[in-house]
């Protein structure tokens, strides 16, 4: 099996004897791991290094002598102790293991020739290595209907199942989605769901990966390839910013499967289903495969790259630098971001560059002293969680936090506008009214609150939360994200400024898109230079680039506002879709209407792309080489596995080509050279040269000391209108965004949109679940069924971005700190 023992540091060595050899191991580590580390691999099925051992497959039986004579013991359940004598290959061990394999095969259908697992199947491999040559079983085998759908993504073949408890343990222990379990007894035992209650977990694909036989298969890979035909490369997932390590697996130049890799500091081998299955979008029919240019008749016509690039170069070169803007780049690689930053800032000379779309967090969050995921999850630590529901936006971070709270005594104080998936694992929680987060942060730091509470949070709740923070053993770490698209991001910065007063505090910026941190670090933010330097500081880039802008440019919302005023003549959309994602639809519409030339570099014909004058097809994850930076600041390699469709190119190559056409003397023409140029000019990126990244499987952390955090002008506290509800607009993992919406298996899994309201407001309105409600804002209205939830505080309406049949972002206005809506009976 591909799992490897959890890395450990031997701090308390004991000597044990394994097959006659004396070896030094960590006291108390499981024998199965200790033996594996010392070249005595013990066969196993149920043991998984990231789950509690159960000792039920009995394959790992070895003879253990602790002074009372050798006895067969499951090595996955036995902690090492001094002077233990272990035999892993004795006659009794071999007999027992052969016996277990024979038992497992007794009812196994042996349909290996048509089984997806054949060729990479632990049961098959271990049968070849340890098993008996022929079967003594002449009885009729167990029969079940095969396969059954236990969720829209996962199928279960109970005949192949060897009842190792891996999937069921994963569901109950790792994710707390205990929707699959054993039913029946003895040899009739089977894994199944409760009738009518499918295994709907955001993490269901992991069960397929850890299944030691072909019992669990996932629809995107089922019957697509044989394992020996697959080619694999290790890479990093960029669907969100957690940066899980993955293997990309393809056959015949088509991406077929993604599996998790056990990166100890990050994902512990787990992936969310979006990260695992969204690769299907790369195979989508909708991919842009050739450059397009708006023709005389106003429609987009295919053109040659040279013509398209010439048109873009012309639009960039002929415009006043201050009227050129670049939006996007946070889904791409560090090197692409650097190439585009260098093109925009160092060649064209504009600072109107923003990797995000006003729907993320300002670049200033990366100036806060940083914390890694491991530091946040430090056993016994205390975490202040300010941000979106982690299960919806950063699923594997949710798994890490949940594990920390459940098993490593980590105390979480949740500061979120509604309850989240983390609420059951939190020691305390407060629900600040949108727009007033900073006041709650101040009260938490102060440890006290006025009698009538703060920002809708009662004094008691505040004191309870402050007490948890006050009792912290060591400095508090803060997970800092944006929970609410309908709230100005400035509010989060103001809260961060207040929380900076906590002694020794460090922050994990919970940014959402895959490579926001990498893009910002590469210079894709207004006022920033690569490596974290400022335009007004001396970062030394003037010696590398032909020019460096002097004026600090506008951020995404500023660029859109300028465009709407007619001040932007050329707008580059680098995988950005302001029409869908910018939190002010009307502004985005006006902006795109008035820009002279829109250049879109994208993989899909999004609404914004369809408004472009020149469209350049871009390669996606799995097709591009480079590196990415996760939310912690961990830089790791992304690698190409398949060739992009048609003539689609990597973003960086477009930037380099445009720079050349604009007459720049820029020598970096490879992704390696771009990386090394970026690192050479950025002292804080030391240690992340191409060669160094190649050598580091789990990535390299950049300097996280922070410095120069400037929260900017505090946002005004919005007036409370007691006739309105304040809007919380959040995201869910399964949305109708570009990736999932174009993944065959994932499309259609998103929830039906609802408007969430509190129990109190539901009573006041006299509505229950499902009652149609009109949500009316200044910009528009929409009608949605009610969802009454105890997790929503009174005075709050909760909507979700990008679900089919609902477009609540149209309600937002960039000028408002918070968005008030009226909710009425339809």
């Amino acid at each position, binding site marked *: 099996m591909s799992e490897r023992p959890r890395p450990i540091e031997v701090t308390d060595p004991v000597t044990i004897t394994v097959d006659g050899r004396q070896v030094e191991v960590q006291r108390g580590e499981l024998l199965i791991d200790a033996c594996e580390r010392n070249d005595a691999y013990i066969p196993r099925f149920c043991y998984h290094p990231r789950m509690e051992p159960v000792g039920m497959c*009995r394959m790992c039986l070895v003879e253990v002598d602790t002074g009372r004579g050798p006895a*067969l013991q499951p090595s996955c359940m036995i902690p090492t102790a001094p002077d233990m004598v272990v035999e892993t290959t004795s006659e009794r061990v071999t007999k027992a293991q052969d016996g277990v394999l024979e*038992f*497992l095969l*007794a009812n196994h259908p042996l349909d290996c020739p048509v089984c997806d697992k054949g060729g990479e199947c632990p049961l098959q491999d271990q049968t070849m290595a340890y098993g008996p040559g022929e079967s003594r079983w002449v009885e009729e085998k167990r029969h079940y209907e095969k396969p059954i759908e236990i969720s829209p993504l996962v199928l279960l073949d109970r005949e192949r199942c060897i009842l190792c408890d891996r999937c069921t343990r994963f569901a109950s222990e790792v994710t707390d989605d205990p929707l699959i379990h*054993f039913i029946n007894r003895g*040899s009739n035992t089977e894994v199944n769901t409760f009738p009518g209650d499918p295994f709907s977990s955001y993490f269901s694909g992991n069960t397929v990966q850890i299944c030691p036989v072909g019992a669990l298969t996932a629809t995107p890979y089922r019957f697509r390839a044989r394992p020996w035909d697959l080619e694999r490369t290790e890479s990093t997932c960029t669907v969100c910013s957690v940066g899980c390590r993955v293997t990309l697996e393809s056959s015949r130049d088509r991406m077929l499967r993604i599996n998790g890799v056990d990166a100890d500091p990050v994902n512990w081998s787990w992936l969310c289903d979006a990260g695992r299955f969204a690769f299907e979008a790369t195979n989508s029919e909708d991919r842009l495969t050739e450059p397009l240019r708006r023709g005389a008749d106003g429609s987009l016509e295919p053109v040659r790259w040279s013509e398209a690039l010439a048109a873009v170069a012309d639009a960039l070169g002929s415009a006043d630098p201050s009227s050129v803007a670049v939006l996007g780049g946070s889904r791409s690689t560090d090197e692409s971001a650097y190439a585009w930053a260098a093109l925009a800032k160092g060649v064209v000379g504009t600072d109107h560059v923003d990797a995000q779309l006003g729907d993320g967090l300002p670049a200033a969050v990366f100036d806060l002293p940083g914390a890694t995921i491991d530091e946040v999850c430090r056993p016994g630590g205390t975490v202040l969680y300010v941000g979106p529901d982690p299960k919806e936006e950063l699923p594997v971070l949710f798994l890490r936090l949940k594990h920390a709270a459940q098993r490593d005594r980590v105390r979480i104080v949740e500061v979120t506008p509604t309850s989240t998936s983390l609420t059951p694992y939190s020691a305390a929680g407060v629900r600040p009214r949108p727009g007033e987060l900073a006041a709650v942060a101040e009260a938490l730091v102060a440890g006290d609150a006025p009698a009538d509470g703060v920002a809708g949070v009662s004094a008691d709740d505040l004191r309870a939360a402050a007490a948890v923070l006050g009792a912290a053993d060591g400095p508090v770490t803060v997970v800092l994200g944006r929970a609410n698209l309908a709230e100005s991001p400035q509010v989060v910065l103001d809260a961060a400024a207040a929380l900076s007063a906590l002694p020794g505090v460090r922050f994990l910026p919970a940014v959402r898109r895959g490579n926001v941190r990498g893009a910002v670090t590469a210079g894709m933010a207004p006022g920033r230079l690569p490596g974290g330097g400022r335009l007004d500081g001396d970062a030394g880039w003037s010696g590398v680039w032909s020019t460096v802008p002097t004026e600090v440019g506008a951020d995404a919302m500023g660029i859109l506002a300028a465009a709407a005023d007619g001040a932007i003549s050329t707008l580059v959309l680098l995988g950005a879709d302001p029409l869908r994602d910018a939190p002010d639809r009307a502004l985005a519409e006006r902006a795109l209407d008035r820009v002279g030339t829109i250049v879109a570099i994208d993989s899909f014909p999004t609404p914004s792309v369809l408004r472009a004058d020149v469209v350049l097809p871009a390669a996606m994850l799995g097709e591009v080489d480079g590196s990415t930076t996760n939310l912690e600041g961990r830089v790791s390699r992304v690698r190409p596995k398949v060739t992009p469709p048609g003539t689609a190119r990597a973003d960086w190559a477009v930037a380099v080509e445009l720079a050349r056409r604009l007459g720049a003397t820029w020598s970096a023409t490879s992704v390696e050279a771009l990386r090394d140029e970026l690192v050479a000019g950025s002292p804080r990126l030391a240690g992340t040269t191409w060669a160094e990244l190649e050598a580091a499987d789990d990535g390299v952390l950049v300097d996280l000391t922070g410095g120069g955090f400037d929260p900017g002008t505090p946002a005004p506290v919005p007036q409370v209108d007691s006739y309105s509800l304040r809007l919380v607009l959040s995201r869910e993992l399964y949305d109708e965004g570009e990736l999932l919406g174009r993944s065959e298996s994932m499309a259609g899994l998103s929830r039906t949109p609802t408007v969430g309201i509190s129990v109190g407001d539901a009573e006041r309105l006299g509505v229950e679940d499902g009652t149609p409600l009109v949500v009316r804002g200044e910009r528009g209205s929409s009608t949605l069924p009610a969802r009454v939830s105890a997790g929503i505080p009174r005075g709050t309406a909760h909507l979700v971005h990008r679900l089919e049949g609902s477009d609540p972002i149209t309600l937002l206005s960039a000028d408002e700190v918070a968005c008030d809506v009226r909710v009425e009976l339809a």
Partner: protein
Amino acid sequence: MSDAPAERTGGSGDTPLIVSSRFDVPEAHTLDVYRNSGSFPGYAGLAAALDRTPDEVRETVASATLLGRGGAGFPAGVKWGFCPPGVWPRYVVVNGDESEPGTFKDRLLMERDPHQLIEGALVAAYAIGAAQVFLYVRGEMPHAQERIAGALNEALAAGLVGRNIMGTDFSVDVVLHWGAGAYIVGEETALIESLEGNRGMPRLKPPFFPAAKGLYMQPTIVNNVETLSNLPWILHHGVDAYRAVGTETSPGTRLIALSGHVRRPGVYEVPQGTTTFRDLFHDDRYGGGIRDGNELKMFIPGGASAPWFFPEQIDLPLEAKPVGAAGSMLGSGAVVVMDETTDAVEACYSLVRFFARESCGKCTPCREGTTWEEKILERILEGHGRPSDIDLLLDVADNISPGPYPVAADPEHGLEAVPFPPKQTTICPLGPSSVAPITSAIRRFRNEFEARITRRDLIPVAAAGSGGDGV
């Protein structure tokens, strides 16, 4: 509901009845009768316990050498001492999930004398410092459930359970829990899983020894119904009186559930160690002889899980140690007598089938192996056996319980006994238990197995004619 005095208990002039003294007393399940009948006044044992410190109570029970009556025979007082000091809360769990085939003594204790059990459980709770007792009663025993629930309500009303018991500051909550019908839940760690609301599957010991990491991962003492039912008598009459019964190493009495081919099957309370199987089968106070004057063929000394004994072992005393050395166990005190009319293959199949049906499905060898054993035996009985099946059966069994498996001596063939207990490739002893009838039957009656395989006249023909021949 009144009880017909159908179950007879032993007891002669010289040996007192410790736990079964009220079995024949009408209405003994009521508090009033409990207080005023039997071999000690009801709740006098608890009163005696509350007059001492918990440590003194534990010391009393330890020096009485009260051996556990659930099967393993571990001294209760010693087990109580295994709770790690300073870890709270602790729990007492009463194992009333009596389901070993042949065993029906705890049922009587729960039906006939529920207060005695409750009193015993309270003594245990006091001794270890538990504030909660979980009373787990087998799901198929509705009569016992009703009696225990009724007794508990009475005890609660009388201030004998709950807050400030008997006016002291000792308070205990008793939680009743009815099982859902799995044999394996009689195993203590599986019972704990079941109590926690999970599927009843055993936990591995170590690390999950209940005394250290039991219910909700807290120190938990799991005691059998009969074990606890001994406590009031011991506390009331004292250690010396208890140790005067039975032998030095196995003091006191045992309830024996005698079934099978004897004239008077029933539950008998016998002094440990001084009674032999011969007494039990033939004495008129007990079994009264083999039925119909038949010859004894074999007997199971300790429930379905125990290897079989044969006529040569009949003079062994009813005591754990000599029975263990002779290759079996006294287990839960279920003695099943089989006379010469018994078919060894059928008997073996019947027992193996039980274990295959009751395997929880957790460990591979038990889950797949017991069913395989059942299927091979079924084939042999249906006339589809192969000569190689006997050795296959033994080897499948050996992969569940690596041999040599405990078995009685066979002097006629010069075969030595293999002492108890068996080894196991499984977590709990259920799988290895299925091996007991196989090794016992094949070693002694291999000829019967061979006959089933080779002789056509033994192939059942009834099945062929019983189908829908009218079609």
